[in-house]
């Protein structure tokens, strides 16, 4: 079953208050998470996104679709990155997410990818 683990929040602002030591540990932690997930045969994809300030949003307004500068949600609630994992159960997906949040302290949304076969 595939789950997406979505990290929200303004990572750049958060990093600005962190110590050199914390940042180094974070880099190592993130590397280990991806390596472990790969070795477990669970990692499908892991990406960090460019800062929300670089985003553009296209909205339907007055009869046409129009792009404008800025993210959809406020920076502090913007998607910052994600993991897509292929795991045995929701329990395992939550276990992975818990491990990450234990370190980062930021919220991670866990949602199933709706690629289950239809049942009929």
């Amino acid at each position: 079953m595939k789950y997406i683990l979505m990290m929200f929040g303004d990572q750049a602002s958060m990093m600005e208050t962190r110590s050199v030591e914390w940042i180094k540990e974070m880099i190592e932690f993130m590397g280990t998470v991806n390596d472990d997930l790969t070795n477990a045969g669970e990692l499908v994809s892991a990406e960090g996104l460019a800062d929300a300030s670089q985003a553009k949003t296209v909205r339907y307004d007055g009869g046409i679709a129009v792009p404008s500068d800025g993210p959809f949600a406020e920076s502090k609630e913007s998607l910052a990155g994600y993991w897509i994992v292929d795991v045995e159960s929701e329990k395992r997906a939550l276990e992975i997410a818990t491990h990450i949040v234990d370190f980062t302290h930021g919220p991670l949304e866990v949602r199933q990818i709706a690629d289950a076969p239809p049942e009929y």
Partner: protein
Amino acid sequence: MEGLLRELVPQALAVLVRRHGQFDACEDAVQEALLAAGVQWPRDGIPVSPLSWLVAVASRRLIDEWRSESARRLRESTAAALAPATPTPVPDQDDTLMLLFLCCHPWLSAPSQLALTLRAVGGLTTAEIASAFLVPEATMAQRISRAKQRIKSTGTSFDMPLGSERVERLGVVLQVLYLIFNEGYTASSGPQLQRTDLTSEAIRLARLLHRLVPAEGEVAGLLALMLLTDARRAARTHPDGTPVQLAEQRRELWDAGQIQEGTTLIDRTLGSGPLGPYQVQAAIAAVHDEAPEADATDWPQILALYEVLEIATPGPVVTLNRAVALAMVHGPRAGLALLGTLDADERMARNHRLESVRGHLLELAGDAEAARHYYQRAARMTASVPEQRYLSLRAARLAEPDEGAPPPS
């Protein structure tokens, strides 16, 4: 075996296209023969005449394809199959060059040029190319298919461009090879900072091109630039993936063989005619690579070369690089002043490098607070995760005076 196959793909393709025209159909057929070889040769051994094998298998596929289309095609293809063919096809050097020109046709988009070149000249399979660019195989297959349709619709024939057109087209080929190299070297997406398959492939194709047109200085220049840049590969990233700046790199990890080869190449072409941008960039890389340690870098020479480059190819990125050299020769304030002239340049508006270089020069000038501000700004602007982290780290270091800033780069 893989290396042999890759070499033979463009040769086989050239033979078929000379015989039948129809670049797109021939390319598909050769691709299928390549895949068949990949399965059969490990099993049955490499054929005595591997090129003939590929050509024969590809021809059969082509004929089968046409046979299933129409009776008219059947007559045409039968005639072609019965036409006297040399038992061992003799590849013409010019044919591979022609293929390069075809795949790098200016009317194709850059992603299409890259993909098609890697397949038809590089001999990579669609799956390999998709993997290198981190896109699904089906997507890459479509990209290549559409590229070939585009070539077909332009009515381009298998003829060598001449005169000024040849110069222009060769420029495009060099651009494509450089893009392939860069894609591998800096990895525009994905968590790894480098993808070595593409850099090796770009170097291999540049070598091939250099053999085909040894008199072209810019081709030698591009090959030299690739070698001199790739030589630093092992020192370029920390084990955790963060980038290591040039000045901080462990130079004992640099590949001395590649540096030697690159330096020799560029030394030979300098003075053989007007200098093109790849040659100048290679010369700059050579000056860097020849310094036994960062402090020994001949910055005045690098500055002079950037001044030459700016005449050949003026632009904000060159100016940005020149500002760094200027700072190393005349002090950070001089470099910062030059950066100031780029603020009004539209093309630099979204470019994180302007901010990160500014941060670096401010750090050198001793203005830690301002430097921190610009590093953090650059961190928000970059589309590279390793670079985001690196810039955040640089900023964080400046907030901890006891940590000490890393040596200047």
